[in-house]
């Protein structure tokens, strides 16, 4: 049923690609959890329960990895032997860094003014930019097989992810 040697894609019976059918992933995930979840073996021996916990943990990990575009890309690149170097490689195009700084200033500014509407606008703009990056990532990985180029896009997405976290905490601060 569960084979640790399988890739996350194989686990859910999906093709190894960045483009992904969310609905098929969800259905496969639920079907698999319905078999392995610890609730199914709560009445069995401790060893069975431990096994269920490990299996269910693995299925959750695989699902979370494939569900998130940035994690999915990172995982696909790792399968192809590419490290995305998010901690070590800080070389970024200047215009990207400039736009990131502008974003951040705008978020800090909205937070200071307690302007929820401005934050909403920033959040939706950020989502659009993220979606565009993800589209290019699909082309780079699935069509061009340009993994080095894809790694750069993953690093950019990591910036967007941090930006999303900052917008989230700005909402929280305004709420407080």
């Amino acid at each position: 049923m569960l084979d640790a040697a399988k890739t996350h894609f194989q686990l859910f019976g999906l093709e190894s690609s960045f483009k992904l059918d969310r609905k098929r992933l969800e259905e496969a995930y639920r079907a698999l959890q319905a078999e392995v979840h610890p609730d199914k073996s709560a009445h069995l021996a401790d060893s069975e329960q431990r096994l269920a916990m490990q299996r269910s943990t693995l299925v959750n990990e695989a699902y979370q990895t494939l569900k998130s575009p940035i994690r999915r890309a990172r995982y696909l690149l790792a399968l192809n032997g590419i490290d995305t170097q998010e901690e070590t490689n800080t070389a970024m195009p200047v215009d990207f860094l400039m736009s990131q700084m502008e974003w951040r200033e705008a978020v800090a500014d909205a937070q200071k003014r307690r302007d929820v509407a401005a934050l909403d606008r920033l959040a939706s703009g950020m989502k659009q930019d993220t979606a565009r990056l993800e589209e290019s990532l699909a082309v780079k990985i699935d069509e061009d097989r340009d993994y080095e180029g894809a790694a750069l896009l993953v690093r950019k997405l990591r910036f967007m992810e941090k930006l999303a976290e900052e917008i989230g905490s700005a909402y929280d601060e305004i709420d407080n």
Partner: protein
Amino acid sequence: MALLQISEPGMSTAPHQHRLAVGIDLGTTNSLVASVRNGISVVLNDEHGRAMLPSVVRYFADGGIVVGDAAQAQQSEDPANTIVSVKRFMGRGLSDVGDISQLPYLFAAEGQGMVQLRTAAGIKSPVEISAEILKVLRIRAEASLGGELVGAVITVPAYFDDAQRQATKDAARLAGINVLRLLNEPTAAAIAYGLDNASEGVYAVYDLGGGTFDISILRLSRGVFEVLAANGDSALGGDDFDQRIYCWILERNQLSALNPKDTRLLLTQARAAKEQLTEHDEARITAVLSGGEVIDNVLTLAEFEDMSKNLIQRTMQPLRRALRDAGLSVEEVKGVVMVGGATRMPQVQRAVGEFFGQTPLTNLDPDKVVALGAAIQANLLAGNQGGDDWLLLDVIPLSLGLETVGGLTEKIIPRNSTIPTARAQEFTTYKDGQTAMSLHVVQGERELVADCRSLAKFELRGIPPMVAGAARIRVTFQVDADGLLNVMAREMSSGIEAAIEVKPSYGLSDAEIARMLQESAEHAKDDMLARALLEQKTEADQLLDAVEHALVQDGELLDASQRAEIETRLNALKETLSSRDHLAIKRAIVLLNEATVNFAQLRMDKSVKQALAGKNISELEVK
């Protein structure tokens, strides 16, 4: 029972393969136990027909313990030894409790861990006090279901952290309960609602209990309950509304620094006023304090709403956060389920209705829905459900992190991760020959360790000595389906498992639990007697009901002496009920049963005649 009891074919109670399991809602103010009987989840009542057990425990100097209504009724008599709302202390330290001068208890000063209370019967931890409540519910369940439980699902607030969850599980162990699962209260409510109404779509569960507030966002689809986000405040509930009224009374009457008895008295009156205001526009508060001062005030609903406005406001922020974490807008929420007695307050319903732009669902009793859902899940986990089942995917409500240099936290498992979940991280030694290292695990969303909740310090020992930086210690943080954290460590180059010593910040050590278990084993005989007594009382009640009903229905079938005989034995049984002697009750049951054999035969003959006369047997009500 000799008296004719007709039951539907296929509705026989407890076929032998049915495993007895219950759901327990261990609440701040009230606790309940429920079980699935004949396919339906029902709350199990005590011998007086009461469903709710007040979560109140009173300790006596002779070691006696009273739990529930009796303890609650006398709470202002002996406030220091009558513990209410103990759930607020679970997994909590003294500094979390707030202003202890507002509370009538004596706190044991020593130790930095979980608070301990000094009572007439000695120092008690909140775990032991909660275990007393759970024990009463276990005994009630065993008496009512007629056998030993294979286990229970115990509910906890979704926003409970690891220490609070562990404390709850420890309390169940102390009470002799096998915990099938710790289940989040809003999720339990969703099960009760969702399975009842075959709902699909995104639902929000707004759960304002006696002392805790939870909001959970779930997606229901084809038998899967998937929690998308949970948020809350584990120190906000109906108690705080009582407190507001209490302060208002003090202000109105220019009172200050009351003694514990008067404090408890006025808090009780405050609560009564709050309940009054759910149906009325004003409530009168009257009391006579120990110094003779007379309190007589009228509180209007408008005043109450005004003083409690910011409490309700405090629940709105978690609502917004949960929706944001789930990536959903208010419009995408199909229904809002209200749970917890405090959601009866009209201003709460109005605020939630305004937030979501729809009328919240209140068709299941907000006090019982959590226990009912927990019982349904317990039945599934015990393996009674067969093929017709469902899947529950819950989350961890607060991020888990590690302390890093400079008192900062590094998140290892983010909040709202579906459980079970795990994360492995590698560490290395920084000194030559280093054989031990320490990890500090915290829970919370803030960046500074000091702003998060300390869970435990893990000491890893037995790392093989190597040059600095050569050892690779892989530490795995595993969160199980109860939402509890386990930590494992292994040195990768040698494969040696490092020994881990856990020092919980607010929990009990294994040694303390062992000692408490030892002590409670000594009380096991009392438990058995209590259960036997309850079983006999339950049986007696059922028999008395049946006989009295039959006398009303068909009393004319008996002659005067037969009737007198039955009535004498009926009264004799009633008298034994107030005793604590289960054998005496049993004897009286046998005697009454014997006296009714002939009566049952007469009723049978009558019903057969009526049936032959073309009457519908269901009209006979021979139960």
